[in-house]
């Protein structure tokens, strides 16, 4: 497993070791508040897990950080670049793997990789070398000439990962990358992720698998758009007095669903950091 080169030190990546910083980030769709007052720092080279039930605002957060959605309020910088003021600057430096993978079904495995590599300016021998390396590292070689549309879930996930990292981004956003993927592919995936992170790539990943959550260096819990917990696995479980992350997850979900139904108010969770939730 070869990790990408260490991130370049071109414009943006100043500000010490902060890869992502959001301040009062908010997104409203009509009358629905998808993300509310999000303050979040993610460190360079960190594997950060964003957890939360469906509809809690994980995907919306990632989309704002990738410049796919414009925040209603607040600011966000990714690798030191403001996502609203310079979305194109951010895009050159990040990789994004969406839940739907974004692969072209009617292109082959190799063509998909070539295409996405080229979109980031990779050309000729450089692109070829990168495609070859990814084919080997992700075990895609035997599927090289297969149409992406005929791949099964695990293979699609590997291909999507290859496409999202073809240009060796400094920051990688992965939105539920392992949904519907078999255990061996998941293991390969996580090994690959750790390899990237040790090479200095920052990773933000969302997941519903608690064993995966426990592999992250730090976690953030989102519930109905609010960041309600933040910290390492140990910190979060300890603060909630629960034996595992899964118990924390279920407890949080139960609590805020009940609370929201009864009072329309949001609970102040134990271990809650004031600057991390901004809700008052």
């Amino acid at each position: 497993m070869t990790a990408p080169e260490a991130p370049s030190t071109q414009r943006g990546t100043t500000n010490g070791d902060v890869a992502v910083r959001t301040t009062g980030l908010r997104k409203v769709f009509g009358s629905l508040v998808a993300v509310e007052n999000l303050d979040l720092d993610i460190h360079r080279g960190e594997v950060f897990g964003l957890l939360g039930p469906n509809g809690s605002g994980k995907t919306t957060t990632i989309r704002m950080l990738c410049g796919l959605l414009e925040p209603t309020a607040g600011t966000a910088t990714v690798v030191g670049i403001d996502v609203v003021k310079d979305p194109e600057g951010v895009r050159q430096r990040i990789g994004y793997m969406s839940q739907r993978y974004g692969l072209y079904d009617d292109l082959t495995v190799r063509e998909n990789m070539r295409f996405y590599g080229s979109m980031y300016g990779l050309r000729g021998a450089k692109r070829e070398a990168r495609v070859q390396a990814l084919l080997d590292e992700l075990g895609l070689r035997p599927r090289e000439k297969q149409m992406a549309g005929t791949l099964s879930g695990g293979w699609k996930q590997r291909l999507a990962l290859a496409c999202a990292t073809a240009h060796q981004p400094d920051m990688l956003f992965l939105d539920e990358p392992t949904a519907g993927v078999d255990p061996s592919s998941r293991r390969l995936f996580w090994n690959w992720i750790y390899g990237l992170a040790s090479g200095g790539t920052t990773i933000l990943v969302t997941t519903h698998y608690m064993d995966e959550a426990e592999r992250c260096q730090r976690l953030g819990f989102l519930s109905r758009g609010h960041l309600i917990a933040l910290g390492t696995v140990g910190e979060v479980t300890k603060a909630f007095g629960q034996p595992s992350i899964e118990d924390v997850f279920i407890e949080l979900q139960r609590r805020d669903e009940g609370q929201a139904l009864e009072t329309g108010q949001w609970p102040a969770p134990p271990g809650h950091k004031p600057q991390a939730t901004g809700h008052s």
Partner: protein
Amino acid sequence: MLERIRQSPLWPMLWKELVQMRRDRFTLGMLVGIPAIQLLLFGFAIRMEVRHLPAVVLDESRTTESRALTQAMANTGNFDVIGSVSDRDQMRRAIEKGDAKAAVVIPPDFETDLKRRRTATAQVVIDAADPLASQAAISAAALASAARNAALAPPAARGPRLEVRVRPWYNPALESAIYIVPGVAGLILTLTLSAITSMSIVRERERGTLEQLIVTPITRSGLMLGKILPFALVGYVQITVILLLGHFVFKVPIRGSVLLLYACTAPFILASLSLGMFISTAVKTQVQAMQLSFLVILPSVLLSGFMFPREAMPVAAQWIGGAIPLTYFLRIMRGVLLRGTGIEAIWKEVLTLCVFAAVLVTLSAMRFRKSLD
């Protein structure tokens, strides 16, 4: 600079579109097949000229010359002589009952006039309730008299021997193919191009690849160009197929410059593609895109002068027709193909098309954002 152009994401976009297009045999077949099928349909099945119009003959002259004229009329193919009548009452009844759509009346002094070198006149009575039929009849009358004139004229003849009343230019037999083919070309271009552009963009949105494209560093204009340029190529293939078929199957003349025609096609294609992009920003699914494309195209069929002459429309319909790009493209096509017109006679239409293209590009660019909002 050169390096920047080489590294532009536009190239992989174009490459990808072309590979996808090549793989999608069905769509590709439709894109070339639709023009061919439409052309054959319009050219063969929908005959706007009326042939074999049933006609009676009232020959009061009963001479060699009158029979020759009757024969000349029948020879045009527009008339089928179904019988003779002996007086005007019988003739009137035949037409009123609908047995005959036309009658040829040759007066008693027809041959005498010819011999005395006076202009001989014959009459064609037409059931004018059917304007297309009457046009055909008028045209046949003109053709027949011209044929007889040519046959009768002695070398030193001064002036016509038979009177010629109608002379439709450019399309002497009022063959609808010649009128229709330039129209079909424009209609096919605007319909298929706006439909495939809108569907192609909506498909990317449906499959989630548009989201992936947006996070790449490609600019908004690069993304738009990458989506429409390949289809411009399709447009040129289509118009070439139509011109070849039209010319070799339907004998549509190409009197003007093909180069000029291809140049004038560019703003029309651009306008159609931008329309497709605009449609893609207004719909959610491919089915909706298809439906909206057809809805938008409908006025083009009815009001552009494609099938019905605009001169015969109410003023309001003429105004709407004036706001449709096809209206101007039709004039260019008919002008260059049938009349051999140069740029000097069609520059206004070309300019109007350029304005349409500019407006539609601007509108769709304003709506087409590089975000998911």
